[in-house]
């Protein structure tokens, strides 16, 4: 998985591309988000547009990010989950947990 960060105002937009799966994507996601929190960032928007799919480990890592944000008094929100990723969020009922946006600007002002 590829990962890039854009800092827009007080929000870090994390652009993910590839699959969030065990032993690879999940580790990349964890490290990047930890780095942001450790650097004092509190508002993280995970851009899932280019994530093709996730496995249970990847989904678990999304939840771990969410919880870590809470601990630090911050928030993690989701942007543009694609077909399969969206289905998985529904299936696992995590759509009830995550605030999810279709439009980046709308997501940015929500923080």
């Amino acid at each position: 998985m590829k990962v890039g960060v854009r800092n827009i105002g007080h929000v870090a937009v994390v652009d993910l591309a590839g699959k969030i799966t065990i032993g690879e994507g999940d580790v990349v996601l964890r490290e990047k988000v930890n780095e942001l929190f450790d650097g004092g960032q509190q508002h993280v928007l995970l851009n899932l547009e280019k994530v093709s799919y996730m496995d249970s480990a990847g989904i678990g890592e999304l939840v771990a990010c969410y919880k870590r944000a809470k601990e630090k008094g911050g928030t993690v929100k989701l942007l543009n989950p694609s077909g399969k990723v969206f289905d998985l969020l529904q299936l696992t009922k995590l759509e009830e947990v995550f605030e999810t946006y279709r439009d980046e600007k709308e997501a940015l002002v929500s923080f």
Partner: protein
Amino acid sequence: MASSTSLRLVLSSEVRLIDLIHQSAEKVAQLAGFDEDEALNIGLAVREGAINAIVHGNRSDPNLEVNITLRASDEGFSAHITDEGEGFDPDAAPDPTEEDNLLATSGRGMLLMRAFVDDIVYSRREARGMEVTMTKRRTTG
């Protein structure tokens, strides 16, 4: 298509082999007549079953083997996965979609498996470990 194509994978219990397993299942599902999207989902179900066999069953001990038989037939796709672990009771696993469990960072593997294949049968092996069989029928017509 031959009446039955089979591919058996026997591997040391290492998570880094999981993408190969996923790809193999995806390919065999395609040979069974499923389209790309269905095949990816079937691959995902096998992936989850294999992760469980490697991680929970064999506790990632590379000296223990996981055995995966993938089969494409006129009826559809099947996967049979065995490990050499302690075994477990699948009915005892908590439902990850219950309110109280939504923030758990694990426990969603079997949910994904159930979502993407038609049948899953778990049993304890006579010797040691678990045995999981998944089938996905081809809905022709």
